[in-house]
């Protein structure tokens, strides 16, 4: 009958478990150490005001990073997130401040919920487009989203005529952004920034999908071994498209929050944020090649970037040096991550 071979049945004892926790919880531990260091280095860091400040600043990156995590888990990468955020923001603000005439019908200025819904819809559609191009034409994710990133910035320029929205003209005619949007970007409840609360809700929703829904499992499978996912009957194209749609949706949410914070949108806003979101995902411990990781790590990654920014400002580090430090942190974190993976790699 079957083999009698016995391999050790439990993976190590308590010692390995602690080490495992240390390795897995790496980003969180890094955050704690960073915070401890900064609280000692500057008295202004560990104040409630500053904490809320940081969360407000991190919210945008965090929300982008959560959608980005879905894409990276499938083994892809979404370079278009910042462009999608800008386009969604522009579309919504234009609809809120400019009367729309379409096919001879005068729609006037759209009600806020509809304009916001359309902005979110634009985000989803952009994501669907990314996913469709990648699945249909078998183009590398990097190339496809590099292309759409440029195209969507162009579309945003067309939508806004290259001007900030609301424009001086529309503002002088009494147009203003709805207070709900402003609140989402700059309001707070009991001192807690609403944008941070939204980021947390998005993260929990992302966690829920990845952990408890078929889509989440399919995303891990596709990123972990595409061929195995296919043999197990998983629709790879659909999984990819949905991951990109989620990324597009979170980008749109982030874009609208930024509008609320800046009280304005423009086609070139959030420049470079796509790379920052990728950095947050990687710092958060998600494998850049897919199949391993999660959104909570990305949330922590975004906060690490935020804390680092804030701390360097408080320490009066020149902005020139800030870039150098941030870049080094990203590389160091990935080096640590590689080392961690080697430690747990192996097999026969």
């Amino acid at each position: 009958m079957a083999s009698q071979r016995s391999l050790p049945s439990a993976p190590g004892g308590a010692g390995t478990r602690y080490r495992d926790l240390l390795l897995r919880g790496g980003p969180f531990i890094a955050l704690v150490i960073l915070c401890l260091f900064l609280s000692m280095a500057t008295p202004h860091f560990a104040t409630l005001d500053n904490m809320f400040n940081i969360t407000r600043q991190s919210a945008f990156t965090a929300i982008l990073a959560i959608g980005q995590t879905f894409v990276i888990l499938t083994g892809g990468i979404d370079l278009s997130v910042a462009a999608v955020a800008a386009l969604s923001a522009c579309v919504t603000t234009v609809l809120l401040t400019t009367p729309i005439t379409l096919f001879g019908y005068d729609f006037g200025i759209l009600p806020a919920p509809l304009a916001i819904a359309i902005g979110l819809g634009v985000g989803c559609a952009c994501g669907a487009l990314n996913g469709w191009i990648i699945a249909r034409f078998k183009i590398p994710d990097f190339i496809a989203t590099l292309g759409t990133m440029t195209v969507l910035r162009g579309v945003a320029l067309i939508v806004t005529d290259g001007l900030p929205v609301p424009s001086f003209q529309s503002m002088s005619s009494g147009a203003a952004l709805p207070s709900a949007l402003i609140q989402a970007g700059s309001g707070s409840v009991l001192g807690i920034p609403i944008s941070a609360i939204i980021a947390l809700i998005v993260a929990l929703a992302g966690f829920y999908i990845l952990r408890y829904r078929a889509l989440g499992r399919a995303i891990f499978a596709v990123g972990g071994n595409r061929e195995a996912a296919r043999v197990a009957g998983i629709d790879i194209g659909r999984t990819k498209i949905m991951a990109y749609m989620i990324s597009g949706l979170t980008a749109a949410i982030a874009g609208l929050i930024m509008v609320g914070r800046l009280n304005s949108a423009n086609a070139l806003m959030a420049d470079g944020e796509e790379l920052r979101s990728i950095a947050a995902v990687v710092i958060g411990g998600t494998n850049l090649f897919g199949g391993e990781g999660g959104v909570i790590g990305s949330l922590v990654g975004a906060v690490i970037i935020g804390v680092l920014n804030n701390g360097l400002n408080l320490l009066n580090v020149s902005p020139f040096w800030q870039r150098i430090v941030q870049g080094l942190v990203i590389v160091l974190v990935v080096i640590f991550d590689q080392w961690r993976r080697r430690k747990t790699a192996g097999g026969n």
Partner: protein
Amino acid sequence: MTATALHPSAAPTAGAPVLLRLESIEKTFVGVRALKGVSLELFAGEVQMLLGENGAGKSTLMKILAGEYQPTAGRIVVRGHEVAGLTPDSAKALGIGLIHQELSLVPALSVAENICLGRMPTNRFGQIDWKRAHELAAEAVGRLGVVIDPGAEVGRLQIAEQQLVEIARVLEWNPEILLLDEPTSALSDAERERLFAVIRRLKDRGVGMIYISHHLAEIPMIADRVTVLRDGSVVGTILPEEADEDRCIAMMVGRSLEDQFPKPVVAKGAPALEVAGLSAGRTLQDLSFTLHKGEILGIFGLMGAGQEEVAAALFGLQKSQGQIRINGQDRLIRTPADAIAQGLGLLTRDRRQSLVPMLTVGPNLSLPWLSNRSPWSALQHRREGEEVQRYIADLKIRPATTTTPVRFYSGGNQQKVILARWMSSGAGILVFDEPTRGIDVGAKADVFTLMGDLVQRGMSVLMISSELNELIGMADRVLVMRSGRVSAELGRHELSQEALLRHAS
């Protein structure tokens, strides 16, 4: 454990210097102790054959010797000097060469570039001397008695040719200690014979070799001593005269393999799968057959006869034409999801094609449950937990944990995980595509036992194989394929190696 301990027995090459000595080598990966105090000696000019089941630790041991892994404990002594902290470079400098089981060539580079990798010949101006590089490569390959175009891109070569390039490349360093990890797995008999000729020449030059193979028939051809590894420990070292098949297998699996093919008697039931005029890809032209409940139907063919595309065509992995009836109903299978919905299951030729390495047994087992379901449907965590526990117990999957990623499992245990997957997905028809490729003797017997259990439960098995013995041992009928079509159908009593080969060629 050491039932047959005949520890380092008399060296056949008495008086030959010890090239390499391993003392109590330990290696622990997260969760798995792969090597538990392995000690062995390698003499100059000997071929020491290393046997062991998958997961016994052979490849790990080789990688430690090649500096690719660091041992957790133990000493490595090369020519009387202890070496610590071996790296791939220092191993090379010590004259240790490893011919990998998985090829370590760069597929996009040419044969010459691969062979000369890292030491391309240059002219006075530091430019690459391509003519010289091609000459060197042609010589290196020529020493193996074959002709391979040095300018050919390695990725386009056949697997056997790639294997020969790999061997040629390692031999170019003139290693004194040569580790061969299943070098003949992809070679034909003639190519293998040429490799053995090279090995004999290296022996005469005093090179010591550790040779890993699953082919017990190679022992009398090449081995000077045979060392058997089981569960990360050395069971014993014996001389080739003592190493008959029964003894080796008993040492490898810790029990005798009285019946390698436990073929149960099962009454043939109603037709489960009827295929008419199936064609796909370049080689499969026209295949028709009926598979009954409780039956094991074998499909045999030589390279390129079309049997390689049967599994992919049936499972919707590849475009195909033809009619498929399942349990008497016409069915259209265009995607794997369709196939799964119709109660088909596929054990792929390559296990890596079936498993997500970083996930644990649970998600790997339940993956097909997701097919044909909404992406927003809930995962069945509880059912997954229960079925994992049941199958780990039923199929004796080791390690019996639910937290270890499947990449840490041995080949045979990975195969069991895949089997458990299809059993849990409710498959009634299982397609085994080369079920024992790259699996050792003990795990083979496990797979065949399970195959027997499955048909006893009323399942049907389509067994596509190029191994004559296992077809003869397990199949109720065998379809022999030639140039994309069935050339003969042989009943169980008609099965013999000669008959199968005669109809195949």
